[in-house]
């Protein structure tokens, strides 16, 4: 597989205010890949995702999407380059309906894509059933599907998923993993996800980056991912 590099992150430093979290993150993700970022709590995984989308500033280093540097532009402009960010804890718009939540995601593409709502309903049938329900009244698993559907509305070329399994029933976790793999296979969308759930990592990831103390410290390929004990070791170092 010699696919082009989609996202190239070089020596990335960043964090909250004066508190540095990322201490020189280097990694690259190729077009059409599903890559996991794993590691213990507090090593900077979510900070990395928030820095990639631009909700946190880059202190040093660079983020390049298809060779274009993103560091100097605001989050909404990064999104419009085709990045679909699914935040930790879902963060659906609670007092808006499911359909209204989905419509906001069209902003990633900057336009409404004909037939896309039906496609999203096809992947996540529960969203069709709950179309007019207020998003804040749904369960965690339903909200997670909504948050993923929301970015799909904008036809992203890469989806950033921050801990999709957090607080969700195991059977829904399996469903979400299966749908993400299917989406990746059908549409070629690149997926980068932060996760601690071994089953989800093994079900989805083609490549895995291990993070510790604000750096990427190891890279695991598909074969290494079949070794459950080894993944567990990285999650609990």
């Amino acid at each position, binding site marked *: 597989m010699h696919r082009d590099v989609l996202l190239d992150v070089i020596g990335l430093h960043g964090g909250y205010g004066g508190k540095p979290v990322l201490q020189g993150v280097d990694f690259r993700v190729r077009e059409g890949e599903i890559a996991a970022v794993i590691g213990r709590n507090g090593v900077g995984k979510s900070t990395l995702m928030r820095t990639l989308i631009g909700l946190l500033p880059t202190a040093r280093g660079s983020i390049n999407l298809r060779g274009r540097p993103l560091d100097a532009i605001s*989050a909404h402009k990064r999104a419009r380059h085709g990045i679909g960010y699914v935040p930790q804890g879902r963060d659906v718009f609670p007092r808006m309906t499911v359909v209204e939540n989905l*419509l906001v995601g069209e902003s990633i593409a*900057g336009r409404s894509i004909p037939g896309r709502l039906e496609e999203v309903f096809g992947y996540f049938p529960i969203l069709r059933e709950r179309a007019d329900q207020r998003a804040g009244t749904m369960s965690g698993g339903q909200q997670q599907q909504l948050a993923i559907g*929301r970015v799909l509305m904008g036809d992203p070329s890469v989806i950033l998923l921050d801990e999709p399994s957090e607080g969700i029933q195991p059977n829904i976790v399996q469903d979400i993993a299966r749908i993400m793999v299917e989406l990746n296979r059908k549409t070629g969308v690149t997926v980068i996800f932060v996760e601690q759930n071994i089953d989800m990592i093994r079900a989805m990831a083609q490549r895995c980056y291990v993070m510790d103390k604000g750096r990427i410290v190891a890279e695991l390929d598909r074969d290494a991912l079949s070794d459950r004990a080894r993944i567990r070791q990285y999650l609990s170092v």
Partner: protein
Amino acid sequence: MEFLYAIFSFLYQFGDAFAFLVLSACGLAVIFGMMGVINLAHGEFILCGAYVSTSVAHMGLPLPVAIAAGSLAAGIAGMIVELVVIRPLYKRPLDTIVATWGISMIVTQGTLIVLGTTMAGSGTPLGSFVVGDYSYSTYRVVLMGMALATLAALWLMFTKTRFGILARATIQVPHVAEALGVNTNLVYSLTFGLGAALAGLAGGLYAPTMTLVPTMGAAFMVEAFVTVVVGGADIFLGTAPAAVVLGLIKATLTSWQGQLAGQIGMLIAVIIVIRILPRGISGKILKERA
């Protein structure tokens, strides 16, 4: 027959009070409800709308055009104020109160210095009609219709248009809206502009009924604040019901004991509401729904 006349008179007074409360308050409510900014310069956007529309009317243009011009001028002024003064202070809500209060004083005094103590009005159009022993202003009935039309237009804008959906998303979870490609700064700018334009509309609509003085914004400001405090942050669940309740109180006391009693009664009602419902009517409704 006398009884029917009395009912008409009461309904007219209620409608008049309701219209004034809604039109004065909705601009303030949009800015407070959507952005959390307490805009103490609200009265001066009303002033802007009143002065511009009256000036345009003096140029010989029809009144509806003049009112639209006043609203537009206030809206543009609002977007400039948002960009220059409000935007740097988003994370400091108390400072926005001080800053907008400063703008209010500058505009009031500036208008006094540049345009003098008063401006010639354009006169109330449309004449009057008689019911029973009293005559009523036809234009005030138009104002009641405008208040209802404004509420309907705002409801359609916030629920049926793309701008409305993005604006609600931005108010609910701003950083996620931004991360989904929504230019949240633009949304804030347009929302503030909309609030200022609504204030300008109120100024333009009421300009023909009053004397234009640089401090005229204050007359609207009290009623606008009272309505928003009673209503809470939501325009439809808050401002409109609050205007109904306060309008009823005011109309009842005014027809019973005169204008002063109406005003006092309204303020007492506010004090009671703050005690019982600290987050206003809409805060209560939203809490029960959640």
